[in-house]
Protein backbone atom coordinates (compact mmCIF):
# COMPACT_ATOMS: atom_id res chain seq x y z
CA UNK A 1 0.00 0.00 0.00
CA UNK A 2 2.57 2.53 1.11
CA UNK A 3 4.88 1.40 -1.66
CA UNK A 4 2.17 2.18 -4.21
CA UNK A 5 1.64 5.65 -2.73
CA UNK A 6 5.37 6.43 -2.90
CA UNK A 7 5.64 5.23 -6.42
CA UNK A 8 2.57 7.32 -7.33
CA UNK A 9 4.16 10.40 -5.77
CA UNK A 10 7.51 9.75 -7.38
CA UNK A 11 5.83 9.12 -10.65
CA UNK A 12 3.87 12.37 -10.52
CA UNK A 13 4.86 15.72 -12.02
CA UNK A 14 6.98 18.35 -10.24
CA UNK A 15 4.06 20.31 -8.84
CA UNK A 16 0.39 19.72 -8.60
CA UNK A 17 -1.96 22.63 -8.09
CA UNK A 18 -2.66 21.54 -4.51
CA UNK A 19 1.10 21.55 -3.72
CA UNK A 20 1.47 25.08 -4.94
CA UNK A 21 -1.55 26.25 -2.94
CA UNK A 22 -0.20 24.67 0.27
CA UNK A 23 3.31 26.06 -0.23
CA UNK A 24 1.93 29.50 -1.06
CA UNK A 25 -0.26 29.49 2.05
CA UNK A 26 2.65 28.51 4.30
CA UNK A 27 4.84 31.16 2.69
CA UNK A 28 2.17 33.87 3.12
CA UNK A 29 1.67 32.97 6.81
CA UNK A 30 5.42 32.92 7.38
CA UNK A 31 5.94 36.29 5.69
CA UNK A 32 3.07 37.87 7.64
CA UNK A 33 4.56 36.63 10.92
CA UNK A 34 7.97 37.99 9.93
CA UNK A 35 6.49 41.38 9.04
CA UNK A 36 4.50 41.57 12.29
CA UNK A 37 7.54 40.95 14.46
CA UNK A 38 10.29 42.63 12.48
CA UNK A 39 8.80 45.76 10.95
CA UNK A 40 8.10 48.92 12.97
CA UNK A 41 4.46 49.67 13.63
CA UNK A 42 2.86 53.10 13.68
CA UNK A 43 -0.56 52.62 15.15
CA UNK A 44 -1.06 56.13 16.55
CA UNK A 45 -2.69 56.89 19.86
CA UNK A 46 -4.92 54.14 21.24
CA UNK A 47 -5.86 56.13 24.32
CA UNK A 48 -4.55 58.59 26.87
CA UNK A 49 -4.56 59.31 30.58
CA UNK A 50 -4.89 62.64 32.40
CA UNK A 51 -3.21 62.88 35.78
CA UNK A 52 -3.31 65.58 38.45
CA UNK A 53 -0.22 65.73 40.66
CA UNK A 54 0.52 62.10 39.79
CA UNK A 55 -3.01 60.76 40.46
CA UNK A 56 -5.09 59.47 37.55
CA UNK A 57 -8.09 61.71 36.83
CA UNK A 58 -9.40 59.88 33.77
CA UNK A 59 -8.47 57.54 30.97
CA UNK A 60 -9.78 57.80 27.42
CA UNK A 61 -9.69 54.85 25.07
CA UNK A 62 -10.49 55.67 21.43
CA UNK A 63 -12.35 52.36 21.14
CA UNK A 64 -13.95 52.05 24.58
CA UNK A 65 -14.49 55.69 25.52
CA UNK A 66 -14.06 57.73 28.69
CA UNK A 67 -13.55 56.44 32.22
CA UNK A 68 -13.34 59.01 35.05
CA UNK A 69 -11.92 57.98 38.42
CA UNK A 70 -14.42 58.21 41.29
CA UNK A 71 -12.34 60.75 43.21
CA UNK A 72 -12.58 63.15 40.25
CA UNK A 73 -16.19 62.44 39.24
CA UNK A 74 -17.22 66.07 39.89
CA UNK A 75 -14.02 67.53 38.47
CA UNK A 76 -14.52 66.50 34.83
CA UNK A 77 -16.98 68.05 32.38
CA UNK A 78 -17.36 66.72 28.82
CA UNK A 79 -18.77 68.66 25.87
CA UNK A 80 -19.18 67.35 22.32
CA UNK A 81 -18.27 69.56 19.37
CA UNK A 82 -15.95 70.19 16.41
CA UNK A 83 -15.89 66.52 15.54
CA UNK A 84 -14.61 65.49 18.92
CA UNK A 85 -14.87 65.94 22.62
CA UNK A 86 -13.83 68.74 24.95
CA UNK A 87 -12.73 67.57 28.40
CA UNK A 88 -12.52 70.21 31.13
CA UNK A 89 -10.73 69.23 34.33
CA UNK A 90 -11.10 71.48 37.38
CA UNK A 91 -8.77 70.93 40.33
CA UNK A 92 -7.61 72.93 43.32
CA UNK A 93 -4.83 74.37 41.12
CA UNK A 94 -6.93 75.50 38.18
CA UNK A 95 -8.92 74.64 35.07
CA UNK A 96 -7.61 72.88 31.95
CA UNK A 97 -9.53 72.06 28.79
CA UNK A 98 -8.35 69.64 26.14
CA UNK A 99 -9.85 68.64 22.82
CA UNK A 100 -10.05 64.98 21.85
CA UNK A 101 -9.96 64.69 18.05
CA UNK A 102 -11.81 61.47 17.33
CA UNK A 103 -10.89 61.48 13.63
CA UNK A 104 -7.18 62.09 14.14
CA UNK A 105 -7.05 60.02 17.34
CA UNK A 106 -5.17 62.78 19.10
CA UNK A 107 -5.59 65.09 22.09
CA UNK A 108 -4.51 68.72 22.54
CA UNK A 109 -4.65 71.18 25.41
CA UNK A 110 -6.80 74.05 24.18
CA UNK A 111 -7.23 76.25 27.25
CA UNK A 112 -5.85 76.69 30.75
CA UNK A 113 -5.88 79.32 33.45
CA UNK A 114 -2.37 78.34 34.52
CA UNK A 115 -0.14 81.30 33.66
CA UNK A 116 0.21 84.34 31.45
CA UNK A 117 2.04 82.42 28.74
CA UNK A 118 -0.14 79.25 28.84
CA UNK A 119 2.71 77.11 27.53
CA UNK A 120 0.68 73.90 27.70
CA UNK A 121 -1.76 75.13 25.06
CA UNK A 122 1.13 75.52 22.61
CA UNK A 123 2.40 71.98 23.10
CA UNK A 124 1.91 69.70 20.08
CA UNK A 125 -1.18 67.50 19.97
CA UNK A 126 -0.50 64.12 21.49
CA UNK A 127 -0.85 61.57 18.72
CA UNK A 128 1.36 58.74 19.85
CA UNK A 129 4.49 60.07 21.52
CA UNK A 130 5.42 62.21 24.48
CA UNK A 131 3.26 64.06 26.94
CA UNK A 132 1.41 67.35 27.39
CA UNK A 133 2.28 68.98 30.67
CA UNK A 134 0.74 71.96 32.48
CA UNK A 135 3.29 72.67 35.18
CA UNK A 136 1.42 75.33 37.23
CA UNK A 137 -1.77 73.23 37.38
CA UNK A 138 0.17 69.93 37.71
CA UNK A 139 -1.84 68.34 34.89
CA UNK A 140 -0.28 65.75 32.61
CA UNK A 141 -1.68 64.02 29.52
CA UNK A 142 0.15 60.84 28.48
CA UNK A 143 -0.58 57.87 26.21
CA UNK A 144 -1.96 54.78 27.95
CA UNK A 145 0.15 51.68 28.27
CA UNK A 146 3.84 51.77 29.09
CA UNK A 147 5.69 54.98 29.71
CA UNK A 148 5.44 57.83 27.26
CA UNK A 149 8.17 57.99 24.64
CA UNK A 150 10.85 60.59 25.38
CA UNK A 151 10.42 63.98 23.74
CA UNK A 152 12.88 66.84 23.88
CA UNK A 153 12.24 70.44 22.99
Amino acid at each position, binding site marked *: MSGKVFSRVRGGG*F*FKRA*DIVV*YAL*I*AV*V*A*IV*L*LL*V*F*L*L*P*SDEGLSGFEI*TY*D*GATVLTYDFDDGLMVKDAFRDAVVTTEGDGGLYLTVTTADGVNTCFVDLGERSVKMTDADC*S*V*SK*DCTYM*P*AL*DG*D*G*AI*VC*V*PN*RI*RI*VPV*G*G*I*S*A*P*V*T*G
Partner: protein
Amino acid sequence: MSKKRTAFILTALLALVAVVISAAGCSYVVDGVDVSGYIPVTLTTYARFDCETAVNVYVADDGEKERLFALWNDEILPLLAEVETSLSCYSDPIEGAIARFNAAAPGERVRLDECAYEAIEMCLRVYRETDGAFNPATARSLDLWGFTDRFLSDGYAPVEAYDRADPHTQLPEPKYISAFAELAEKFGGVTLQEDESGFYAIKPEDGSVTVDGADYSLALELGGIGKGIAADEIASLLVERGFKYGYVSVGGSSLVMLANAARMTGGNTGLFDVSVVDPYKGGHYYRHYCRDIAVSTSGNYRNSYSIDGRVYSHIIGRDGVPYDTGVVTASLFGPSAALCDAYTTAMCVMGMADGEAAAFASKLKNYGYVLIYETNEPTIHTNLSGENLRGYAEVRG
Protein backbone atom coordinates in the same frame (compact mmCIF):
# COMPACT_ATOMS: atom_id res chain seq x y z
CA MET B 1 17.39 17.14 -5.74
CA SER B 2 13.95 17.46 -7.33
CA LYS B 3 12.30 20.84 -7.65
CA LYS B 4 9.44 19.53 -5.55
CA ARG B 5 11.74 18.58 -2.67
CA THR B 6 13.62 21.89 -2.93
CA ALA B 7 10.37 23.84 -2.76
CA PHE B 8 9.23 21.78 0.21
CA ILE B 9 12.49 22.32 2.12
CA LEU B 10 12.58 26.08 1.42
CA THR B 11 8.98 26.54 2.51
CA ALA B 12 9.53 24.46 5.63
CA LEU B 13 12.60 26.54 6.52
CA LEU B 14 10.69 29.79 6.04
CA ALA B 15 7.87 28.52 8.24
CA LEU B 16 10.36 27.37 10.88
CA VAL B 17 12.02 30.81 10.98
CA ALA B 18 8.62 32.47 11.30
CA VAL B 19 7.58 30.16 14.12
CA VAL B 20 10.86 30.74 15.97
CA ILE B 21 10.53 34.51 15.65
CA SER B 22 6.89 34.37 16.76
CA ALA B 23 7.81 32.26 19.76
CA ALA B 24 10.60 34.68 20.62
CA GLY B 25 8.05 37.48 20.36
CA CYS B 26 6.27 36.12 23.43
CA SER B 27 9.32 37.02 25.49
CA TYR B 28 11.35 40.18 25.14
CA VAL B 29 15.01 40.12 26.00
CA VAL B 30 17.19 43.19 26.53
CA ASP B 31 20.85 42.80 27.46
CA GLY B 32 20.25 39.10 28.21
CA VAL B 33 17.36 39.80 30.61
CA ASP B 34 13.75 38.83 29.84
CA VAL B 35 11.94 42.13 30.46
CA SER B 36 8.59 41.14 28.96
CA GLY B 37 6.86 41.22 32.36
CA TYR B 38 8.40 44.48 33.53
CA ILE B 39 6.01 47.11 34.90
CA PRO B 40 6.13 50.75 33.71
CA VAL B 41 6.18 53.35 36.49
CA THR B 42 6.15 57.13 36.06
CA LEU B 43 6.82 59.47 38.98
CA THR B 44 6.49 63.22 38.57
CA THR B 45 7.00 66.37 40.56
CA TYR B 46 6.35 70.00 39.70
CA ALA B 47 7.99 71.42 42.80
CA ARG B 48 11.43 72.22 41.34
CA PHE B 49 12.92 74.28 38.50
CA ASP B 50 9.44 75.59 37.50
CA CYS B 51 8.96 72.54 35.33
CA GLU B 52 7.97 68.89 35.42
CA THR B 53 10.54 66.34 36.49
CA ALA B 54 9.52 62.85 35.40
CA VAL B 55 11.24 59.58 36.25
CA ASN B 56 10.01 56.82 33.92
CA VAL B 57 11.26 53.41 34.98
CA TYR B 58 10.45 49.78 34.17
CA VAL B 59 10.57 47.59 37.27
CA ALA B 60 10.70 43.80 37.53
CA ASP B 61 8.04 43.32 40.21
CA ASP B 62 6.10 44.94 43.04
CA GLY B 63 9.08 44.68 45.37
CA GLU B 64 11.22 46.67 42.96
CA LYS B 65 8.38 49.16 42.56
CA GLU B 66 8.38 49.75 46.32
CA ARG B 67 12.15 50.25 46.21
CA LEU B 68 11.67 52.83 43.46
CA PHE B 69 9.04 54.72 45.47
CA ALA B 70 11.40 54.78 48.46
CA LEU B 71 14.25 56.04 46.28
CA TRP B 72 12.00 58.74 44.85
CA ASN B 73 10.84 60.00 48.26
CA ASP B 74 14.02 59.55 50.24
CA GLU B 75 16.68 60.54 47.73
CA ILE B 76 15.47 61.89 44.37
CA LEU B 77 13.12 64.59 45.73
CA PRO B 78 15.72 65.80 48.28
CA LEU B 79 18.36 65.74 45.55
CA LEU B 80 16.21 67.97 43.31
CA ALA B 81 15.65 70.39 46.20
CA GLU B 82 19.38 70.46 46.95
CA VAL B 83 20.38 71.16 43.33
CA GLU B 84 17.74 73.85 42.91
CA THR B 85 18.65 75.61 46.14
CA SER B 86 22.35 75.43 45.37
CA LEU B 87 22.03 76.84 41.84
CA SER B 88 19.22 79.39 42.21
CA CYS B 89 20.56 82.77 41.22
CA TYR B 90 18.47 84.81 43.65
CA SER B 91 16.65 83.95 46.86
CA ASP B 92 15.35 85.93 49.79
CA PRO B 93 16.71 85.16 52.31
CA ILE B 94 19.87 84.00 50.57
CA GLU B 95 20.08 80.23 50.93
CA GLY B 96 22.06 78.74 48.06
CA ALA B 97 25.67 78.98 46.96
CA ILE B 98 25.03 80.77 43.64
CA ALA B 99 22.71 83.29 45.31
CA ARG B 100 25.55 83.98 47.80
CA PHE B 101 28.00 84.41 44.94
CA ASN B 102 25.67 86.80 43.11
CA ALA B 103 25.18 88.92 46.24
CA ALA B 104 28.93 89.09 46.96
CA ALA B 105 31.07 92.15 46.28
CA PRO B 106 33.87 92.10 43.65
CA GLY B 107 36.97 90.34 45.00
CA GLU B 108 35.00 88.48 47.68
CA ARG B 109 35.69 84.81 48.43
CA VAL B 110 32.40 82.93 48.58
CA ARG B 111 31.84 79.54 50.17
CA LEU B 112 30.16 77.08 47.78
CA ASP B 113 28.76 73.60 48.10
CA GLU B 114 30.10 70.78 45.92
CA CYS B 115 27.20 71.03 43.45
CA ALA B 116 27.75 74.75 42.77
CA TYR B 117 31.53 74.29 42.65
CA GLU B 118 31.30 71.57 40.01
CA ALA B 119 28.69 73.56 38.06
CA ILE B 120 30.90 76.68 37.89
CA GLU B 121 33.91 74.52 37.02
CA MET B 122 31.99 73.03 34.09
CA CYS B 123 30.70 76.46 33.01
CA LEU B 124 34.23 77.90 32.97
CA ARG B 125 35.39 74.99 30.83
CA VAL B 126 32.56 75.37 28.30
CA TYR B 127 32.89 79.17 28.34
CA ARG B 128 36.50 78.78 27.20
CA GLU B 129 35.78 75.96 24.75
CA THR B 130 33.06 78.01 23.05
CA ASP B 131 34.94 81.30 23.07
CA GLY B 132 32.30 82.85 25.32
CA ALA B 133 29.28 81.71 23.29
CA PHE B 134 28.13 79.91 26.42
CA ASN B 135 28.25 82.36 29.29
CA PRO B 136 26.31 81.83 32.52
CA ALA B 137 27.16 85.35 33.74
CA THR B 138 24.14 86.79 31.95
CA ALA B 139 21.82 87.08 34.96
CA ARG B 140 21.82 90.90 34.70
CA SER B 141 21.07 90.82 30.97
CA LEU B 142 18.26 88.31 31.49
CA ASP B 143 16.70 90.63 34.05
CA LEU B 144 17.20 93.61 31.74
CA TRP B 145 15.40 91.82 28.89
CA GLY B 146 12.53 90.64 31.09
CA PHE B 147 13.28 86.93 31.48
CA THR B 148 13.54 86.51 35.25
CA ASP B 149 10.80 85.29 37.57
CA ARG B 150 9.52 88.74 38.50
CA PHE B 151 8.31 89.29 34.92
CA LEU B 152 6.36 86.04 34.73
CA SER B 153 3.63 86.93 37.21
CA ASP B 154 0.67 89.22 36.63
CA GLY B 155 1.85 91.51 39.43
CA TYR B 156 5.00 92.86 37.71
CA ALA B 157 5.88 96.48 38.50
CA PRO B 158 9.06 98.40 37.55
CA VAL B 159 11.64 98.38 40.36
CA GLU B 160 15.10 98.62 38.81
CA ALA B 161 16.39 101.79 37.11
CA TYR B 162 16.33 99.97 33.75
CA ASP B 163 12.80 98.57 34.04
CA ARG B 164 10.11 99.49 31.51
CA ALA B 165 6.37 99.55 32.05
CA ASP B 166 6.03 96.61 29.63
CA PRO B 167 9.41 94.93 29.04
CA HIS B 168 7.97 92.65 26.37
CA THR B 169 6.98 95.50 24.07
CA GLN B 170 9.66 98.10 24.94
CA LEU B 171 13.36 97.57 24.29
CA PRO B 172 15.91 98.42 27.02
CA GLU B 173 18.27 101.39 26.86
CA PRO B 174 21.51 100.64 24.94
CA LYS B 175 23.73 101.82 27.84
CA TYR B 176 22.45 98.95 29.99
CA ILE B 177 22.79 96.42 27.18
CA SER B 178 26.45 97.25 26.61
CA ALA B 179 27.25 97.57 30.32
CA PHE B 180 25.81 94.16 31.15
CA ALA B 181 27.53 92.58 28.12
CA GLU B 182 30.82 94.01 29.41
CA LEU B 183 30.00 92.64 32.87
CA ALA B 184 29.36 89.13 31.50
CA GLU B 185 32.83 89.11 29.94
CA LYS B 186 34.29 89.15 33.46
CA PHE B 187 33.13 85.55 33.97
CA GLY B 188 36.47 84.20 32.77
CA GLY B 189 38.05 85.92 35.79
CA VAL B 190 36.17 83.80 38.34
CA THR B 191 38.58 81.55 40.24
CA LEU B 192 37.76 78.39 42.15
CA GLN B 193 39.47 77.04 45.24
CA GLU B 194 39.10 73.71 47.02
CA ASP B 195 40.74 72.80 50.32
CA GLU B 196 40.07 70.78 53.49
CA SER B 197 37.61 73.43 54.71
CA GLY B 198 35.43 73.30 51.61
CA PHE B 199 34.73 74.75 48.15
CA TYR B 200 35.10 78.43 47.25
CA ALA B 201 34.76 80.88 44.33
CA ILE B 202 36.39 84.27 44.15
CA LYS B 203 34.58 87.00 42.26
CA PRO B 204 36.94 89.03 40.05
CA GLU B 205 38.14 92.36 41.50
CA ASP B 206 36.76 94.09 38.42
CA GLY B 207 33.51 92.09 38.54
CA SER B 208 31.10 95.01 38.45
CA VAL B 209 29.91 97.84 36.21
CA THR B 210 28.43 101.23 37.02
CA VAL B 211 25.52 102.79 35.13
CA ASP B 212 24.17 106.19 36.19
CA GLY B 213 25.87 105.85 39.56
CA ALA B 214 24.43 102.41 40.33
CA ASP B 215 26.81 99.45 40.70
CA TYR B 216 25.90 96.08 39.25
CA SER B 217 27.94 93.09 40.38
CA LEU B 218 28.71 89.97 38.30
CA ALA B 219 25.82 87.50 38.63
CA LEU B 220 25.36 83.94 37.38
CA GLU B 221 22.24 82.23 36.06
CA LEU B 222 22.55 78.44 36.02
CA GLY B 223 18.90 77.47 35.57
CA GLY B 224 19.40 75.72 32.24
CA ILE B 225 22.32 73.55 33.17
CA GLY B 226 20.75 73.05 36.61
CA LYS B 227 18.09 70.92 34.92
CA GLY B 228 20.79 68.99 33.10
CA ILE B 229 22.72 68.45 36.32
CA ALA B 230 19.56 67.20 38.04
CA ALA B 231 18.81 64.80 35.15
CA ASP B 232 22.38 63.44 35.21
CA GLU B 233 22.35 63.00 38.99
CA ILE B 234 18.98 61.23 39.05
CA ALA B 235 20.00 58.87 36.25
CA SER B 236 23.25 58.02 38.07
CA LEU B 237 21.28 57.32 41.23
CA LEU B 238 18.88 55.00 39.38
CA VAL B 239 21.72 53.01 37.82
CA GLU B 240 23.57 52.86 41.12
CA ARG B 241 20.45 51.33 42.73
CA GLY B 242 20.00 48.74 40.00
CA PHE B 243 17.29 50.38 37.85
CA LYS B 244 18.53 49.86 34.32
CA TYR B 245 15.45 50.50 32.19
CA GLY B 246 13.79 53.87 31.72
CA TYR B 247 14.58 57.54 31.30
CA VAL B 248 14.61 60.81 33.23
CA SER B 249 13.20 64.10 31.95
CA VAL B 250 13.62 67.47 33.59
CA GLY B 251 11.42 69.97 31.84
CA GLY B 252 11.70 68.14 28.51
CA SER B 253 14.82 70.17 27.72
CA SER B 254 17.15 67.76 29.56
CA LEU B 255 16.73 63.99 29.31
CA VAL B 256 18.86 60.98 30.19
CA MET B 257 17.99 57.64 28.62
CA LEU B 258 18.97 54.27 30.08
CA ALA B 259 17.78 51.14 28.22
CA ASN B 260 14.20 50.68 27.03
CA ALA B 261 12.27 47.66 28.32
CA ALA B 262 9.24 48.30 26.10
CA ARG B 263 8.92 46.02 23.10
CA MET B 264 10.34 47.74 20.05
CA THR B 265 9.96 46.51 16.52
CA GLY B 266 12.41 46.90 13.68
CA GLY B 267 15.36 45.45 15.55
CA ASN B 268 15.59 48.41 17.94
CA THR B 269 15.93 46.24 21.05
CA GLY B 270 16.58 48.33 24.16
CA LEU B 271 16.49 51.63 22.28
CA PHE B 272 14.22 54.61 22.92
CA ASP B 273 12.80 56.54 20.00
CA VAL B 274 13.52 60.10 21.11
CA SER B 275 11.49 62.74 19.28
CA VAL B 276 12.42 66.39 18.93
CA VAL B 277 9.62 68.99 19.05
CA ASP B 278 8.94 70.83 15.80
CA PRO B 279 8.86 74.56 16.60
CA TYR B 280 6.84 75.39 13.49
CA LYS B 281 4.18 72.78 12.87
CA GLY B 282 3.66 71.13 16.25
CA GLY B 283 4.40 67.45 16.55
CA HIS B 284 7.97 66.34 16.00
CA TYR B 285 10.49 66.99 13.27
CA TYR B 286 13.17 64.43 14.00
CA ARG B 287 13.42 61.01 15.60
CA HIS B 288 16.57 59.32 16.82
CA TYR B 289 16.86 55.80 18.27
CA CYS B 290 19.27 55.64 21.20
CA ARG B 291 19.99 54.42 24.73
CA ASP B 292 22.44 55.14 27.55
CA ILE B 293 22.77 58.73 26.41
CA ALA B 294 21.63 62.22 27.39
CA VAL B 295 20.00 64.88 25.24
CA SER B 296 19.36 68.58 25.77
CA THR B 297 17.59 71.13 23.62
CA SER B 298 17.84 74.92 23.48
CA GLY B 299 16.08 77.37 21.20
CA ASN B 300 14.27 80.64 20.79
CA TYR B 301 10.72 79.38 20.34
CA ARG B 302 10.02 78.99 24.06
CA ASN B 303 10.25 81.71 26.69
CA SER B 304 10.49 84.46 24.10
CA TYR B 305 8.59 87.45 22.76
CA SER B 306 8.53 89.43 19.52
CA ILE B 307 8.90 93.13 18.88
CA ASP B 308 8.51 94.37 15.31
CA GLY B 309 8.88 90.82 13.98
CA ARG B 310 12.18 90.17 15.77
CA VAL B 311 12.21 87.30 18.29
CA TYR B 312 13.81 88.03 21.68
CA SER B 313 14.55 84.84 23.59
CA HIS B 314 16.04 83.93 26.96
CA ILE B 315 19.46 83.05 25.50
CA ILE B 316 21.76 86.07 25.54
CA GLY B 317 24.39 86.55 22.84
CA ARG B 318 27.95 87.78 23.26
CA ASP B 319 26.75 91.36 22.63
CA GLY B 320 24.28 91.31 25.53
CA VAL B 321 21.28 91.02 23.21
CA PRO B 322 19.05 87.92 22.88
CA TYR B 323 20.60 85.92 20.07
CA ASP B 324 19.35 86.28 16.51
CA THR B 325 21.48 83.84 14.55
CA GLY B 326 18.78 81.88 12.74
CA VAL B 327 19.10 78.77 14.92
CA VAL B 328 15.51 78.05 15.95
CA THR B 329 16.20 74.92 17.97
CA ALA B 330 19.34 72.89 18.67
CA SER B 331 19.49 69.43 20.27
CA LEU B 332 22.61 67.57 21.27
CA PHE B 333 22.92 63.89 22.20
CA GLY B 334 25.91 63.07 24.39
CA PRO B 335 27.19 61.65 27.64
CA SER B 336 25.92 64.41 29.99
CA ALA B 337 22.65 66.38 29.93
CA ALA B 338 24.31 69.32 31.70
CA LEU B 339 27.12 69.53 29.16
CA CYS B 340 24.68 69.06 26.28
CA ASP B 341 22.62 71.97 27.62
CA ALA B 342 25.64 74.25 27.83
CA TYR B 343 26.76 73.26 24.33
CA THR B 344 23.33 73.72 22.73
CA THR B 345 23.06 77.16 24.32
CA ALA B 346 26.44 77.97 22.76
CA MET B 347 25.34 76.58 19.38
CA CYS B 348 22.31 78.90 19.35
CA VAL B 349 24.61 81.87 19.98
CA MET B 350 27.20 80.73 17.41
CA GLY B 351 24.64 80.32 14.62
CA MET B 352 25.00 78.73 11.23
CA ALA B 353 25.80 81.68 8.96
CA ASP B 354 29.36 80.43 8.55
CA GLY B 355 28.60 76.95 9.83
CA GLU B 356 30.12 77.73 13.25
CA ALA B 357 27.56 75.79 15.33
CA ALA B 358 27.67 72.62 13.20
CA ALA B 359 31.47 72.82 12.92
CA PHE B 360 31.74 73.12 16.70
CA ALA B 361 29.31 70.24 17.34
CA SER B 362 31.08 68.03 14.81
CA LYS B 363 34.33 68.41 16.73
CA LEU B 364 32.75 67.12 19.94
CA LYS B 365 33.64 63.47 20.33
CA ASN B 366 30.69 61.11 20.98
CA TYR B 367 28.04 63.80 20.43
CA GLY B 368 25.30 63.97 17.82
CA TYR B 369 23.47 67.15 16.90
CA VAL B 370 20.28 68.09 15.11
CA LEU B 371 19.16 71.66 14.64
CA ILE B 372 16.77 73.79 12.63
CA TYR B 373 18.31 76.81 11.02
CA GLU B 374 16.16 79.35 9.28
CA THR B 375 17.11 81.95 6.74
CA ASN B 376 14.48 81.95 4.02
CA GLU B 377 13.14 78.53 4.92
CA PRO B 378 13.84 76.04 7.72
CA THR B 379 16.69 73.61 7.15
CA ILE B 380 17.67 70.64 9.28
CA HIS B 381 21.38 70.26 10.00
CA THR B 382 22.46 67.00 11.60
CA ASN B 383 25.13 64.36 11.91
CA LEU B 384 22.68 61.82 13.38
CA SER B 385 21.33 58.68 11.77
CA GLY B 386 17.74 59.57 12.62
CA GLU B 387 14.51 60.07 10.73
CA ASN B 388 13.49 63.42 9.25
CA LEU B 389 9.81 63.35 10.11
CA ARG B 390 8.69 66.52 8.36
CA GLY B 391 10.64 66.52 5.13
CA TYR B 392 12.46 69.79 5.76
CA ALA B 393 15.51 70.23 3.53
CA GLU B 394 18.37 68.45 5.28
CA VAL B 395 22.10 69.13 5.42
CA ARG B 396 24.21 66.22 6.65
CA GLY B 397 27.11 67.13 8.90
